């Protein structure tokens, strides 16, 4: 048995590393595909005008883990549409490539630590070339939420596989994304439909409703019927609920009988993860014996009673029904806008994105590339100065932006950064550690008792801002800029920025601050703020006859300016 397992694992490792496979061919029929489904797409996408450097910086803030100086230059010489096309073609950086080898080294009964996931996340946020894809995976991880907090705490390889699945489908199609999310064993554990069994009146057992509810409420259609522009449809002045509890109990029967993937189909394979060594990275499959054969009604779809239960067919029916619901375009499109561009898109903007979701130009629904283009190329995304547009930067994205802006390197090569949950002395947010399936913040969150509430504006990211977190972040970013971040080896923190691009400019505080303003905010600093920072930086004198001290002083100038920008509301609100 052990020899067989080892052979299997070796062959898997070999296949994963093998580059001779044709695109899209998985190692075996039990695995997830290696690439997203290819869709018919419009043949050419016209080049857009050259952006200014400030626009290029803004684009990169919306689409990556933070702009680098050379990327701003390159994009300003190119155009945004071409940049998007190039990103769509960039090979995916796989978290599993970092985590699988560690998993295979584990002794029996041992588990990996979450820190391995965080290290992998920060390494790729800082350095991966497929920035848009990784940034999209992060955005999708805040919509199709699973979390280490809870039953997944040691399922590191499985969560890495989930991340890679999000990244793979980020440029594919929404239907496949929804299907692969639904079948992922990490989602199966998180929302408890893995091993969910059909109803059994004799034993007083009913199907678990958890996933059926959340797949509708959070992952596809939402609570209320929407117009194409994301506003609520009204009947007699009231919103119309998309589903009721009968729909949930009906759909819950669809999500019965799904359990561990792989070739085994016996009862023990349904019940015991130990029988399939890759259970955590293989999509769940249907086990007819445990799947409800009774009638299933949901959202107007009726699946008739079956002589032999058909889990795979029922799942296809259900995903098709959800995918084709008219709410999906505006529901998903608006959330993607909020994750990348602005908290309060106009209905017209949501409508343009929803129309792109519904039809990519050649009649294909759910083309993620078309949705991404619509979100990012929209005039509302590209306008640089509309009032009250933009969004609060998430804490995770502030740290990643520091890394990329200042060429942060990890001495160990591993980016030794752990859990960043604590709002009092860290970021108040770690990737994939949302407290619940409702994400770190809700898309409709309104800070109570504020001018924003009176203006009917939402500010999702404000939900994790508190009197403690604002000070905690300021202190955290200050020590990061001063001493680096991550576990210290030999008295020095593992991840250090070199500020090399900025140091030559530090002789002139004005030029230096302007360069940082471009890099960090896309030229959003107010005049007062810029003046204040220039003054504070100028107060650090550069000793004329001591070159070593002058170097240190220049470094201090850059670091002080970076800090004074990165703690200011000018910066914290990404416009």
């Amino acid at each position: 048995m052990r020899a067989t397992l080892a052979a299997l694992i070796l062959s898997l490792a070999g296949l994963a590393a093998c580059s001779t496979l044709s695109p899209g061919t998985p190692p075996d029929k039990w695995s997830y595909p290696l690439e997203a489904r290819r869709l018919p797409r419009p043949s050419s996408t016209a080049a857009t005008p050259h952006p200014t450097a400030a626009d290029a910086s803004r684009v990169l803030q919306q689409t990556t883990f933070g702009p680098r100086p050379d990327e701003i230059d390159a994009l300003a010489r190119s155009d945004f549409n071409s940049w998007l096309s190039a990103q769509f073609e960039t090979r995916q950086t796989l978290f599993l490539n970092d985590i699988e080898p560690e998993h295979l080294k584990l002794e029996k009964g041992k588990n990996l630590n979450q820190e391995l996931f965080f290290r992998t996340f920060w390494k790729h946020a800082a350095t991966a070339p497929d920035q848009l894809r990784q940034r999209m995976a992060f955005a999708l991880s805040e919509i199709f939420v699973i979390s280490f907090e809870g039953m997944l705490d040691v399922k590191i390889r499985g969560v890495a596989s989930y991340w890679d699945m999000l990244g793979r489908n980020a440029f594919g199609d929404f239907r496949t994304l929804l299907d692969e999310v639904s079948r992922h064993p990490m989602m199966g554990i998180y929302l408890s439909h893995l091993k969910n069994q059909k109803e059994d009146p004799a034993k007083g057992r009913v199907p678990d409703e958890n996933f059926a509810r959340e797949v509708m409420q959070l992952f596809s259609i939402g609570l209320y019927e929407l117009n194409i522009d994301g506003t609520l449809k009204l009947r007699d002045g009231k919103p119309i609920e998309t589903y009721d509890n009968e729909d949930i109990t009906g759909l819950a029967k669809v999500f019965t009988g799904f359990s561990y993937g792989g070739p085994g189909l016996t009862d023990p394979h349904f019940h015991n993860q130990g029988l399939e060594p890759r259970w955590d990275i293989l999509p769940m499959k249907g086990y007819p014996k445990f799947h409800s054969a009774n009638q299933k009604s949901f959202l107007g779809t009726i699946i008739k009673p079956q002589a032999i239960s058909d889990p795979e067919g029922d799942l296809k029916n259900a995903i098709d029904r959800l995918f084709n619901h008219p709410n999906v375009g505006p529901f998903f499109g608006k959330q993607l806008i909020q994750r990348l561009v602005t908290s309060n898109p106009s209905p017209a903007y949501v409508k343009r994105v929803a129309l792109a979701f519904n039809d990519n130009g050649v009649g294909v629904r759910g083309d993620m590339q078309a949705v991404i283009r619509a979100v990012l190329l929209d005039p509302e995304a590209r306008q640089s100065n509309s009032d009250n547009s933009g969004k609060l930067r998430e804490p995770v994205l502030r740290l990643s932006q520091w890394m990329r802006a200042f060429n942060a390197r990890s001495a160990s090569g591993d980016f030794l950064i752990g859990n960043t949950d604590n709002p009092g002395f860290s970021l108040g947010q770690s990737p994939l550690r949302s407290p619940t399936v409702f994400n770190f913040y809700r898309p409709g969150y309104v800070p109570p008792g504020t001018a924003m509430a009176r203006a009917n504006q939402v500010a999702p990211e404000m939900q994790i801002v508190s009197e403690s977190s604002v000070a905690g972040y300021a202190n955290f970013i200050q020590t990061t800029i001063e001493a680096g971040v991550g576990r210290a080896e030999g008295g020095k923190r593992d991840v250090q920025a070199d500020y090399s691009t900025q140091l030559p400019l530090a002789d002139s505080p004005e030029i230096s601050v302007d360069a940082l303003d471009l890099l960090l905010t896309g030229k959003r600093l107010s005049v007062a703020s810029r003046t204040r920072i220039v003054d504070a930086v100028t107060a650090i004198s550069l000793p004329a006859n001591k070159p070593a001290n002058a170097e240190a002083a220049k470094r201090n100038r850059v670091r002080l300016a970076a800090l004074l920008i990165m703690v200011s509301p000018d910066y914290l609100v990404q416009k």
Partner: protein
Amino acid sequence: MSNASRREFLRRVGALGLLRAVAPLGLQLAGIGAASAANAPEDYRALVCLFMMGANDAHNTIVPYDQASYDTYATARTSIALPRETLLPIHPINNIGGRELALHPALMPLHNLFERRQAAILANVGPLLVPIKDAATFKNTSIARPPKLFSHNDQQAIWQAFSPEGAKLGWGGRLADLLSARNGKHMFTAISTSGNAVFLASDKTIQYQISNSGAIGFNRSTANQLFGSAKGAEALRAQIAMAGDDLLQKEYAGVVNRSIDAHGLVSAALARLPETDPRLALPADLAQQLRIVARMIGVRDDENIQQRRQVFFVSLGGFDTHDHQLGKQAELLSSVASSIAYFQQSMENLGIARNVTLFTASDFGRALLSNGDGSDHGWGGHHFIVGSAVQGGNIYGQFPDVALNTTTDIGNGRLLPTTAVDQYAATLARWMGVSNADLPLVLPNIGNFSQRDLGFMAAI
């Protein structure tokens, strides 16, 4: 305008009725609320909401114990029934229809409080718009019912604010608005240890979110030198709090300003109540939240704090036990019970236990039927009220028959609540000093329920 003076300004214009056009409710609160504040007892009162996020399974929290009732329970619950011999039988003063009840085995510290009459139980409480007589009425008529039943985020909001997600006015926040007039520092009237709680949201009172270790300061904002710049710290102070006309920027800067104000006041006050105060021994997890609540209560009279009425919010997550319920819930309830006992002990040690009442809440109760190794979303549930002003050792409300197809079973053993959250809240609000006439300001639907005082609090 500084933050403090802006608050003072808002208070005054509110009192003068100038906010009528934009904030009618704010006006009502400012005007009529003064009556509640004026009639409120002079002593200190605090309410602590302990919210069990994810929906605690009430069916396994308080369990029928006499053999016949237990057998019915066990038959319905199958694989997730608790073994009878592990349960902790309680001895309520009142008669529950001849039945006996017991607590989950992990609740020993709470069991002790109940038996000592420092804790009461409110049975089958949940959101209602109007009383609903029975399950048949619920199923067969279009009688008004709360929106989005069984949905976590919405029912959390409804419990806390009587409206689904997006709610802007929590009943804890409304209480704070009504009763804060005598507080020295308005900003400490409503305190959360557990994120932005809609329970504490209101037009006038902005909740202060404290960390378990107290207030967090901006470390380098008063340094002589920052990166070698003599002007660095001054610039840092200006930068963190600056904002243009942008609403979001202003909102963030507003939090920064509150943070700076609070840090100055809280740090100094807490320093006068040392970390090592033997009245507040160091506890774990949820109790750490309750410890900072206890510490803030401990400095209520400090010149920096000056509180007469406070509302607190603490929470613990993880109660959504669709699977592995037996193990998970035991762990969580153990934390709840020991934390509550720690808190009650701390209040007794501070000599303030008659003035502080803790109550539990949760998204909803859960269905009675098992889904194999867990339970699904329900509606009504049972809750605890703890403190020395509680008429403890008693069961309030109507403890349901724990079985399928009863008059309170709306399907799979989901309980139709027989007591409304509004009534639960009204009983607590009255104890806090809200006048009977003002109750509708805190609880807009209270008029739909005849009994406003469920009797579990001692008379004022």
